[in-house]
């Protein structure tokens, strides 16, 4: 992205943030809803720490790394690329038409349409969870492990963005496809925090090769904690999770471009 484009994107973000700040109650409520939305993860982590010593052959401290990684990736996704979720409404309101009239990529304009205040809540919970997970971890956090964890979080961000970009691409043609985005969000929230080896093999396979949920946090956590050979997937594939996220995101952007080229608009 050229310097001027970065400057423009930053300026729009600042203005959007300032606009949200002016509605104080709404602003605080959005932050709260971002945190409350993750209540299931918080409950899961609390139950895990207080009632169980482990899960699916993993220590509690190792398991905790899964929701922490997923939550952080999710919070960053909401902050940077989350506006692609729920695009059907923008399409039906004709906002995409307006974006197509400006000399700026439509995807970027979608991301700049408002500041996601709820991401502050998401990220606050995620950071707390990650600090807790790292504090309880028995692993030796070498530079290599830290780098891999960062790559995994970014990969998780991109993978989630890829899934929602694919849904948004479908929404360009069929706005009702938006409902699939809600289902996807539900699925990520429900299964994203567990070691998937506790699930029946078929379900684990589906969440690996059907919807690549396992690559968001489960596989990276498995690789980091030494469970990489017991995931049911080839080790190299589990270890390549950050790369899978990147490749999936790039492919989703190609799909987006293709779908935008076939955009039929609303109201004739």
């Amino acid at each position, binding site marked *: 992205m050229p310097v001027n484009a970065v400057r423009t994107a930053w*300026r*729009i973000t600042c*203005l*959007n943030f300032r*606009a949200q700040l002016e509605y104080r109650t709404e602003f605080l409520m959005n932050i709260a809803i971002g945190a409350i939305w993750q209540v299931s993860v918080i409950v899961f982590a609390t139950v895990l720490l207080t009632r169980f010593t482990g899960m699916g052959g993993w220590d509690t401290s190792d398991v905790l790394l899964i929701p922490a990684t997923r939550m952080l990736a999710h919070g960053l996704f909401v902050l940077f690329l989350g506006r692609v979720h729920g695009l059907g409404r923008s399409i039906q309101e*004709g906002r995409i038409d307006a974006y*197509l*009239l400006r000399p700026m990529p439509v995807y970027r304009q979608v991301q700049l349409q408002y500041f996601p205040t709820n991401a502050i809540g998401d990220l606050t919970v995620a950071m707390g969870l990650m600090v807790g997970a790292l504090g309880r971890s028995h692993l030796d956090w070498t530079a290599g492990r830290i780098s891999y964890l960062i790559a995994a979080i970014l990969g998780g961000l991109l993978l989630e963005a890829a899934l929602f970009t694919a849904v948004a691409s479908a929404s360009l043609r069929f706005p009702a496809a938006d409902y699939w985005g809600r289902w996807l969000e539900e699925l990520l929230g429900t299964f994203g925090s567990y070691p998937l080896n506790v699930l029946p093999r078929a379900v684990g396979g589906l969440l690996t090769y059907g919807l690549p949920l396992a690559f968001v946090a489960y596989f990276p956590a498995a690789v980091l904690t030494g469970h990489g050979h017991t995931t049911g997937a080839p080790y190299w594939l589990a270890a390549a999770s950050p790369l899978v996220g990147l490749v999936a995101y790039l492919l989703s952007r190609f799909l987006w471009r293709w779908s935008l080229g076939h*955009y039929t608009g609303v109201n*004739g």
Partner: protein
Amino acid sequence: MIGNIEVRGLTRTFHTTVRRPGFAGALRSLVNPERVAKHAVSDITFDVAAGELLALLGPNGAGKSTTIKMLTGILTPTSGEARVAGVVPYRERERNARNIGAVFGQRTQLWWDLPVRESFAILRDIYDVPEAEHAARLREFDELLGLSSFSDTRVRHLSLGQRVRCDLAAALLHDPPVVFLDEPTIGMDVVVKEQVREFLRHQVAERGRTVLLTTHDMTEVERLAERVVLVNHGRLVLDGTLDEIRRTFGSTWQVRATLADPHTPVGPLPGIALIRRDGPQVVFGPDGPAAPTVHQALKQVIERYEVTGVAVDEADLEDVMRTAYAQAEAV
């Protein structure tokens, strides 16, 4: 030529599923959908010269908005070609966007939650407009549209008239040679309408912008347009000046004359029929497709006969277009 629009055989076809009536029909459509092609725009060809204001008219669903969407790069045509200021809009969307401004009367292109002034500042950055130029243009638009009284208001709090005036300014801030306006004055009060019309006249006459306007407001057409393209069911029905359209469809004018000598023999004139005579009172009307305009007819009547008084009844453009739409419908 910078700022001209060329449209050649432009066609846009949408494929839709036929909804069969009743619950059983709906189920049948689900299992065995019947797809039909709907030609929203079909083989349309026209040109707009640089600095010209063209009104693209037609009844609802005629294909006006779809045509504008193809020319602005929002939609890709199924076939045919279009060039706007030398650029193919659907192939080079971002390049085309720098050459055009567009206002869709029913939708805003501004940032809903931001004050107008900040929306303008963002557009300045997006279009790389130098600060001094931006400020000068804003001053000019403020003089013509009276924007300063609400420029610190958030877009979501603006009235329709204020919002469309801001949208107009936003569409022209980067000084585009071509402007597309899709029903820009819809729902406005007469005062704001007139202000917007004056602004558009200024943009064409003083700034030399090419404007393609769609509207259902015939007063607007009369006051702004030199030429009209009429479409119906996606097809071009007529491309001509307002006079030509009146000649073709406005066959309802009448010239009433009072003869100085009630015994003067009266007959038809070229393209003019004698409708009735009652003593010194004679009534003329158009005769056939080669009938003159009402002004030409009036001149002929006065030159041919000695009259003590004349009156003209002319169908307004609304009547003319009603006739045009009805005839287009019958084709």
